[in-house]
């Protein structure tokens, strides 16, 4: 089994499952939002929708799914291209820096999203 300190669940199989489950949640969420938007929205209706507890929970679920999905996804991409095999030690340094940057962005997305859902 391949292990690494930067993957999500210490096991590739776990990450694989996270990737699939989060994909399904995102699919459901975007399909739902798409239907709502196609139906047309004004401020009052939109605001009321996001005031409902179930909608906030659904949105938070989608937000967390997005964050996990993105971490696993970006991790796969970075560990494929920024590697020691491709560019020596530079690869490892660049990869860790890129992962740090992505981690910061993911953290900002999470806090920002929660702020939008519960802040207004």
């Amino acid at each position, binding site marked *: 089994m391949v292990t690494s300190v930067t993957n999500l669940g210490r096991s590739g199989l776990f990450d694989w499952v996270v990737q*699939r489950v989060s994909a399904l949640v995102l699919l459901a969420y*975007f399909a739902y939002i798409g239907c709502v938007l196609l139906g047309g929205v004004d*401020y009052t209706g939109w605001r009321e929708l996001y005031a409902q507890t179930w909608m906030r929970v659904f949105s938070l679920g989608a937000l967390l799914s997005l964050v996990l999905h993105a971490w696993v996804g970006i991790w796969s991409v970075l560990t494929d291209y920024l590697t020691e095999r491709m560019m020596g030690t530079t690869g490892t340094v660049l990869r860790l820096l890129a992962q740090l940057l992505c981690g910061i962005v993911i953290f900002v*997305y999470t806090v920002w*999203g929660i702020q939008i859902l519960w802040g207004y």
Partner: protein
Amino acid sequence: MRLPITAWVSISHRASGVFLFVATAVLLWALDASLRSPESFAALRECLDTLWMKLVIWAVLAGLIYHTAAGVRHLIMDCGIGESMPGGVLGARLVIAVSVLLTVLAGVWIW
């Protein structure tokens, strides 16, 4: 580069995934503005009405549509369906056809 269609679909899925990670900032920004206040909702409406913003939104939707279509294909193949060579090619063609169709429809909806 001459690559089989299945390779193109796969690499574009990867590229669209990375693109969406960045585009999430746009989506959160829009959600933020749409819920903040009636004024910001109206301002967002106006802002999204400009040509450049329409192009940005269309690009984000195109990325989302493509990534989702190719993602669903991925999940179907994970279930062991269409894993043969002809199955893979057919799936790849379907992904492209569905994405182009939905992206055009999204453009019609935006404009």
